[in-house]
């Protein structure tokens, strides 16, 4: 088990290095000039040249890249060109908020999605199944942006139950988590349903029923647990969607998370901020994939890593 974790982490290093190279090159070829974004709409050419020298943007690309790697090796992601604040501090300040939102959305999606999926599978073709299927299609098709605005309109402006946007007490978390999770609820319900149907037809389920277990125990303890393997995969893969989907959700709900930070950094060509946050998010992805793999072993004793 430990060897497995260690090997996976070691393999992550070339992946992250690849990410860095790609981001670095992309930003280099992309149009838009960080220095001109720094100085605002107007500045004289001398100031621009001086800043370019100070930021060492006039040096050859590989020298810039080498010094950037050197910084990362020392745990230094550099300072933002625009705000002059350390990137790491900015990320540490915002990521927990994004994680909170993603976590809440994921929790909401798994509880609702798995429940709906399991209930649908109990009587395939029944009224609940058909209603849930219809709702799932709608849920998958609506963009986060639209769902978000609709939720604000309904629950904040019309009903006045919830605040429209902002960050603070748990009450502020409900609408964004619902918006971010809406697509996943639908998707998870679909996956759980089909996986459950497959499992419910299995021999061990027949055996469980034959030995006289109550239907509830059969469904929840025997079938559902086995049906969850593909659901875990989907959740793991979906985590990426939660982080990227949070960019829009954070914008609509004025949520001060990392997604907005990245968007702002890109709009202002704040190179160190873009590189730092992409690197950070890549590390998160690698870790999430690892956790997903470990969760398989937990859910299914047949899967073992050694």
């Amino acid at each position, binding site marked *: 088990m430990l060897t497995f974790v260690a090997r996976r982490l070691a393999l992550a290093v070339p992946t992250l290095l690849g990410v860095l190279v790609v981001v670095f090159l992309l930003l280099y070829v992309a*149009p*838009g*000039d960080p*220095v*001109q*974004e*720094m*100085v*605002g*709409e*107007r*500045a*004289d*050419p*001398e*100031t621009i040249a*001086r*800043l370019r020298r*100070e930021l060492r943007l006039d040096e050859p690309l590989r020298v810039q890249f080498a010094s950037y790697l050197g910084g990362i090796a020392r745990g230094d992601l550099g300072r933002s060109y*625009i*705000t*002059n*604040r350390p990137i790491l501090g*900015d990320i540490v*300040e*915002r990521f927990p908020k994004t994680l909170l939102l993603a976590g809440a959305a994921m929790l909401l999606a798994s509880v*609702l999605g798995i*429940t709906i999926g399991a209930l649908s599978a109990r009587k395939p073709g029944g009224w609940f199944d058909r209603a*849930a299927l219809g*709702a799932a299609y709608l849920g998958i098709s609506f963009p986060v942006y639209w769902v978000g*605005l609709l939720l*604000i*309109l309904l*629950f*904040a*402006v019309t009903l*006045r*139950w*919830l*605040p*429209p*946007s*902002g*960050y603070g*007490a*748990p*009450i502020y978390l*409900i609408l964004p988590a*619902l918006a971010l999770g809406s697509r996943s609820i639908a998707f998870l319900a679909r996956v759980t349903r089909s996986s459950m149907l497959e499992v419910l037809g299995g021999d061990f389920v027949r055996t469980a029923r034959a030995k006289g277990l109550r239907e509830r125990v059969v469904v929840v303890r025997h079938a559902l647990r086995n049906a969850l393997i593909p659901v875990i995969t989907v959740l793991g893969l979906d985590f990426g969607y939660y982080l990227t989907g949070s960019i829009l959700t954070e*914008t*609509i*709900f*004025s949520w*001060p*998370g990392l997604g*907005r*930070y990245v968007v*702002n950094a890109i*709009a202002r*060509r704040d190179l160190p901020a873009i590189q730092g946050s992409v690197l950070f998010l890549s590390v998160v992805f690698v870790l999430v994939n690892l956790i997903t793999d470990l969760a398989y072993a937990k859910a299914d004793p047949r899967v073992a890593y050694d």
Partner: protein
Amino acid sequence: MRRFIVLPLLVAAACQGGDGASERATLVDSRDTYDPRSLDPALSTDVPTGRAVGYVFDGLVRFTPAAEVEPGLATRWEVSPDGLTYTFHLRRGVTFHDGSALAARHVVRSFERVLDPKSRGGRAEPLMPIRGARDFNAGKAPRVSGLAAPDDSTVVITLAEPLAIFPKLLAMPVASVIPDSVPENFGEHPVGSGPWKFVEWRHDDYIRFAANESYWGGRPKADSLLARIIPEPSTAVAEFESGNVDVLQVPEGETRQWDQTDERKALLQSVPALRFVHVAINTTRGPLKDARVRRAINHAVDVDAILSQLFSGRGRRAAGVIPPVLGGADSARTPYAYDVARARQLLAEAGHPNGIDVELWTSQTPVYVRMSETIQGYLAQAGIRAKIVQRDASSTREAARKGETDMVVRDWYADYPDADNFLSPLLASTNKGVGGNYSFYASPDFDRLVTQARREQDEAARSALYARADSAAFADAPMLFLLFYNELYAVQPWVRGFEVPTIFNGQRWLNVEIQRQTAGRR
């Protein structure tokens, strides 16, 4: 399924309790759409930063909501007859939020700090007219020779050459005065002498300010002020509708929904903004070198239709680059008439009877994308085949600065309320490209008039020179003249004393208050 969704919401509604707008004593602003860059005046290049800096800091002078210059830390000033030396007399008894007393040396040090090559602010431009500022900024001189503090209450500033608009430059955020002790994280914990003390900044969320009890101009009427950062305009509207924010900049797309119901209309306030929407035409590229072709473009587009359809009539049609509220604007000048036949004729005269091909660049801001498509349609009628190139704002700007755009949609906001801030960056030959002149317009006559106006101390004479320069450029048509934008705000009924500012840092919330009795959820 119903149970699952409704239950948490009911719980949430129960937790919310009874605090609505009626109990709120804090003024809440919704205008910032992104996090300020810093609260350090030296780094002030964007609107959210400039606004916040204006709350915490004072300059020698400042802008009123109507964008007039009024005394700030200086009670009065004199200009030498040659227009080179400005003597500012400082207000006595002014203290910074940390308790230290203002002295003339603070002004000198604050300006030197902005100009210091080490400060890396990049926005020292407004202070560059001071004699010796350029050398100091380039690291060639140990001090700024044009800055002096002969005694504690006098600041003498000598300019490199006469510049009548200099006091307006001093009302910009970058010319704010800061105290002696500047900690490393000054940008996060600013200390000034302004009407509001800095309390707390949650990045991408809000900035909180508290009334400065001992403000020399009188304590602000409200106790605290919250500048919320709301990136999505529709969300800001929802916050306003819910009574959570006091002031809203009505998005263009929503204008009709606001001015067509009486209840909402009563909340609206409109002022002409110092904002000029146009399409810069690069006068050095292909057929666009010919002024007749550029005039043809102006005749080909129905600007009135664009103004009423895309901007809901929020603005005035432009016949020149100087907004109507500024000196030098000539309201008698007639715009180019919408006349397709005339446009075709001008093209033919210029030797293009079969029309021309151009690229029309725009950022991805929805209203400008729609506007570009509309313009493309009009131009096609006259035989001008425009290809729309859509890029993000930063890339579009870079291409325009390099002179790679035939035509580029542009929305110009003033930094200071003066015709010079439109004529000179948009059209002076010294500002080609990076300086802001995306038309690459170069006219010796125009340049001479603008330079002459900058030196002229007499306001009437200066305005006349500006009007002449504007007329000359209008005839040369280095741009497609579109409109001067009107700012439209919605202000809650319980808010008293709010005036919509003409310039971004013209409203410091000194006289604004929440009337508690009538306050409540609508």
